[in-house]
């Protein structure tokens, strides 16, 4: 496993916007996370069966599919959040830079330290905006100028201008869209390698959603992002790779197709994908 990033200074985010991330244009992609034949069980219920796909570095991978097909379950395996669900069991291999993160030797705390997560419903801590960001850095032993880190994270999350004068106010006083960007800033403050987003815009209005999408395109230059979304247009707009899930006859979530986003939406390989993206099913 790579050593944890200990410094808080990363190159400042450039302001020029690009349509595609640099890695997408390269021929050889580095795979940050690889899932191989992953099965998830909740007690006796076999929720997800035989999922295999890779997450390439500095790209956005979108997981789409109908409700209940296991997208969220799969994304939660990547940072071991399913450990928190009683009776949840994961089989198969999930590697992060070649290390099997499901191995009993691997500490889930270390995994989550490198693979951050943003949730469906904004969940800022009931503390000040400043503390919302500084807390993660503090508990992870990140040293340095905390004020600078807070500002840098908020700028990265495109929230600084809106909150710079009220850092001492509660994070709960912000609007939904602002809260979600605060949660993104909080995740960025611990300088993760991968950011998982579980329907980050599903509870937001269209303008806030657009802001989050723009933000993701900015962030993907420095981070690797996996996003679960209900919204096909969103996947088409922001992602480099799309993974389509569906339910099989036994009502288990299965992976149908994983392709570069443009291919999946213009030229789906599987009939079920085509049915879904054309709105005939789902």
């Amino acid at each position, binding site marked *: 496993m790579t050593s944890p990033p200990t410094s808080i200074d990363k190159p400042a985010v450039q302001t020029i916007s690009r349509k595609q991330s640099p890695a997408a244009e390269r021929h050889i992609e580095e795979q940050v996370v690889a899932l191989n034949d992953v099965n998830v069980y909740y007690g006796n219920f076999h929720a997800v069966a035989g999922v295999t796909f890779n997450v390439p570095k500095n790209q956005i991978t979108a997981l789409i599919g109908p409700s209940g097909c296991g997208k969220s379950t799969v994304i939660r395996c990547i940072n071991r959040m399913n450990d928190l669900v009683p009776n949840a069991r994961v089989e198969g291999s999930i590697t992060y830079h070649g290390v099997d993160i499901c191995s009993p030797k691997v500490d889930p705390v270390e995994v989550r330290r490198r693979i951050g997560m943003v949730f469906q419903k904004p969940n800022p801590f*009931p503390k000040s905006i400043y503390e919302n960001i500084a807390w993660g850095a503090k508990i*992870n032993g990140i040293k340095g100028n905390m004020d600078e880190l807070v500002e840098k994270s908020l700028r990265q999350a495109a929230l600084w201008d809106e909150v710079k004068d009220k850092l001492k106010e509660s994070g709960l006083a912000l609007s939904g869209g602002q809260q979600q960007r605060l949660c993104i800033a909080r995740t960025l403050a611990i300088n993760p390698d991968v950011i998982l987003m579980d329907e980050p815009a599903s509870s937001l209005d269209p303008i806030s959603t657009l802001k989050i999408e723009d933000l993701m395109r900015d962030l993907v230059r420095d981070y690797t992002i996996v996003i679960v979304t209900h919204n096909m247009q969103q996947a088409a707009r922001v992602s480099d790779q799309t993974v389509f899930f569906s339910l099989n006859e036994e009502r288990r979530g299965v992976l149908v197709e994983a392709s570069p986003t443009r291919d999946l939406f213009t030229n789906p390989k599987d009939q079920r994908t085509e049915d879904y993206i054309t709105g005939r099913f789902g």
Partner: protein
Amino acid sequence: MSVFSTPRGIVTRSLEGSPGVRSRKRRGAIVSWIYVAATASAVLALAVLLWTIWDRGASSLDLSFITSKSSSRAERAGIGTALLGTLWIITLTALIAIPLGVGAAVYLEEYAPRNWWTRILQTNISNLAGVPSVVYGLLGLGVFANILALGRTIITGALTMSLLVLPIIVIAGQESIRAVPLSLRQGAYALGATKWQVTRYHVLPVAMPGILTGTILALSRAIGETAPLLVAGASGYLTFNPDSIMDGYTVLPVQIFYWTSRPQDEFRELAAAGIIVLMIILLMMNSVAIVFRHRFGKRARW
């Protein structure tokens, strides 16, 4: 055709109310009066009780009554020793029972695996909360006073009371901890926090007002308990103030009980005055609990 379809003609029916609607409304009014009567009778009983006590005890209530020690002569006897004993007992009980109770609640909610063993544990904690208090007194007498040879001292009384309130504090603590939204925990875990960091910085601060409210209510119940301390060794008649945890003691309800069993009328008046003091303490504690609930209840919203 659907079973729940709208009756035909509902649109054209008079908006002033049909006989059916009027009879339903009448039934509603009757029922609401029954509830008012039920509430009123409870409040009335309490008012009569308070008035009787005040009427009998107010004349004995003065500063010397509150500070004086007990005496075999009614005009010299006061509640001072018992008040001091109550303060000793309740402070020690809080110091013993709160850390243990909150610790147990945190363990059961955040750490313990969900299996048959913890289910048995859980059921028994609920059962303990319903055990008659005199049983705790016997336990205290047997274990603390005799086996541990602590005697009929303040520490025995406080340990006995701690056992009595512990299940209530554990259950109140568990409920407050369970009410902390899962999303808050997940947010903290996702930042690479350990279980203890999540508990220490997020779960406990949010749960604390609820825990404190439950704890204060448990302690105010303990203040009024007579039976366990009577059994575990509180004295009815004590003419010196305790000044260490290894001293003998008495508490307000035991002192009141002792006075009511005396034949002289003067002592009955003292008992009534003692009850007023006890009630004032209880009301004060319950007000603190209400303030906690309101002050912190408003802030928590997700």
